[in-house]
């Protein structure tokens, strides 16, 4: 065991960390936009068909494995002429699944705001949309934060799956290095530590944000 080899492991894993962070941030952004958008529509819309459509999206994507969905996007769409790069497929795939999770998170956050808040806002003359934007949304977002944090930690771990569609993230670099050096235990052990550091950092920063935003 020499230092040159250790340096090589660190360099390979760090290169992967960049991609893992990119995929995580990208998928998180897609998930939050979809989740918040659909949860808002679900909260404000009266039409039954709208609720039903959102429900179908959520149930469909929450009940199939991420890996299957990634294969469907990456290999399936290529077959019908839509060729996504592995990075785009990774961000889009994890983001769409995350969106389904995030809709439920934001929805329950918004519904946890006491009904009196909405009623009081309406009684002082705010329009339903203004009441939503100024009163319900800020409180609902704060209530959603802990669940969103759990989801983010899960997302960091799920990015390891995109190695299967050849996005060059941590797991992919680790596997390549193993193929070259056969130092299986050491490399995958280091990989585990890298993921542990990433998930701990995400969990820590989210609970910090939670404390900052806590209502007195």
């Amino acid at each position, binding site marked *: 065991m020499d230092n040159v080899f250790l340096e090589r492991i660190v360099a390979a894993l760090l290169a992967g960390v960049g991609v893992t962070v990119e995929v995580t941030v990208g998928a998180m952004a897609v998930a939050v936009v979809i989740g918040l958008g659909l949860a808002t529509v679900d909260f404000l819309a009266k039409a039954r068909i709208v609720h039903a459509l959102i429900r179908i999206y959520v149930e469909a994507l929450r009940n199939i494995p991420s*890996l299957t969905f990634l294969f469907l996007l990456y290999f399936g769409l290529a077959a019908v002429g839509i060729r996504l790069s592995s990075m785009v497929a990774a961000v889009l795939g994890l983001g769409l699944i995350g969106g389904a999770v995030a809709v439920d998170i934001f929805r329950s956050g918004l519904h946890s705001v006491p009904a009196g808040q909405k009623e009081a806002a309406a009684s002082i003359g705010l329009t339903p949309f203004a009441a939503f934007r100024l009163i319900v949304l800020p409180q609902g977002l704060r209530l959603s934060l802990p669940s969103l944090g759990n989801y983010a*930690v899960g997302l960091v771990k799920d990015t390891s799956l995109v190695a299967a569609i050849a996005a060059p993230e941590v797991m992919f670099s680790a596997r390549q290095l193993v193929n070259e050096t056969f130092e299986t*235990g050491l490399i995958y052990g280091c990989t585990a530590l890298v993921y542990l550091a990433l998930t701990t950092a995400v969990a820590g920063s989210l609970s910090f944000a939670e404390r900052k935003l806590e209502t007195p």
Partner: protein
Amino acid sequence: MMFFDTILANIGDWLPRMLTSLRTTLVLTVGAFCLAFMLALLLEYLRSRRLRAARLAARLYIALARGVPILVILYLIYFALPGAGMTLSSQLSAVIGLALVYAAYLAEVFRAGLDAVPAGQREAALSSGLTPIQTFRLILLPQAVRHTIAPLVINLVSLLKDSSIAALIAVPELTLVSREIMSESFLPLQVFTLTAVLYFLLAWPASLVARAIEQRLRYPSARTSSSKSLNQLKEAQASA
């Protein structure tokens, strides 16, 4: 439509193979869940001990298992253990790996269930002369169980989904076999749509059951929180 025609034309060829691999998926899921359940009970027992080292070890284990992706753990077991002189088949590696991870999740479920029983229940039971074991068996456990059933079913569903990761260490379960069928037929969209439908048909009913249990078993106090019931009333009126 072309898309469904292609699926229908090939279903006689694909479905038998998929169903065979589905059996592997189910064996993996059920095996890992049972093992995880027992491990989780052990973890929870360790965590409830007065012994500091035991508590610390259990908490460390749970933090590790929850912070590392399942794929990494499967790779460690399947590819790295042979280096230490222990070679496991891919199936066994998958069951053990999934169980090790889910033990940590289930331990949290058990803990949440026990925590949800008000402290007064335990104090009242002890003060009425029940032994600690009787208190646990007769008072705490029955109340805790109702809080754990729904999360257990939800974990079972996500374990079913995560069993697809075993494809990456060459366990011939549904996802791997679908990939094989894909590379023979060059019809990835149709093949993986069928795969997704199969997973969905298994997972969705279970999720619905979990949600139904959750609503049924909610404590009366939680069920009739005034603002919520007012909302439900309004919704019912609006939809009527």
